[in-house]
């Protein structure tokens, strides 16, 4: 049995040599990080968990291709963020297929009015995040919450560093507007 303190490389080597069950150590080691990403990207608990599971399955399938150029943590984060974006796109597509634009707008309105006056800061930030477009949200989550550098963020999302900066500026501006709207409403 492998020691949970074994390095990622040791664990991956043994998994690739057939000790598939050791992958549970990798899941235990990184599930909190994946959860942090998924819950911030996809608000719904069940969907976030589904994306989390898919992240680890995707990692397992691509272990042979992983070349240790980046840390495993960064590699997993990249998978999680991309799967979250894919999920959000498919949810949006499904929603557009079944609901009229007006209904969608009403859903946002009802969400806004259901906000209690004594809202926690955390909830406020969550709502402001959910108001962003998925790609902008991913930039904010990676750069501002998870603390990755602009370079790392651009590499994870496959976009230019300049694009990261411009998306971040726009997203921060929009979040401030949303937060102002809520805090003014509370007063």
């Amino acid at each position, binding site marked *: 049995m492998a020691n949970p303190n074994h390095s990622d490389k040791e664990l991956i080597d043994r998994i690739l040599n057939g000790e598939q069950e050791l992958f549970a150590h990798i899941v235990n080691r990184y599930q*909190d990080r994946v959860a942090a990403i998924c819950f911030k990207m996809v608000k719904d608990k069940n969907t976030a968990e589904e994306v989390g599971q898919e992240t680890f399955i995707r990692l397992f399938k691509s272990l042979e291709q992983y070349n240790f150029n980046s840390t495993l943590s960064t590699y997993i984060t990249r998978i999680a963020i991309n799967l979250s974006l894919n999920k959000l796109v498919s949810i949006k597509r499904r929603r557009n297929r079944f609901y009229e634009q007006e209904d969608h707008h009403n859903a946002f309105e009802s969400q806004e009015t259901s906000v209690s006056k004594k809202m926690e800061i955390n909830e406020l930030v969550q709502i402001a995040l959910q108001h962003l477009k998925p790609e902008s949200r991913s930039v904010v989550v990676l750069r501002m919450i998870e603390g990755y550098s602009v370079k790392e963020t651009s590499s994870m999302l496959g976009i230019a560093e300049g694009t990261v900066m411009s998306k971040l500026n726009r997203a921060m501006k929009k979040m401030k507007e949303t937060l102002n709207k809520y805090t003014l409403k509370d007063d």
Partner: protein
Amino acid sequence: MIDLEKMLHAQKQHSEVFSENFTEGVMAKIRALGNQEFRIISLWQHRVWKVAAACFVGCLISLYALDGTLSVDSVLGLSEYSDIEISQSYNTYSAWDLELN
């Protein structure tokens, strides 16, 4: 005044977690995936052998057919009589008929 950056940094401390049986769920899916992939591979191996055998037989038949040693007659069990021989025997019978008449 809203300090958004501070609020966002604070989000890192506030993190939600997956359900208790998350790891079990992932491992169950991975085990199922392994079995499924093994089934697909063995199914394809089985099919590949069949396809390869059919191709081999097809090649042999083509070779014989191109060589002229195989004909529709031989396949139907009439290989003893070629078209020429049959037509010749028909002529012979016709000649006999003429002689008899």
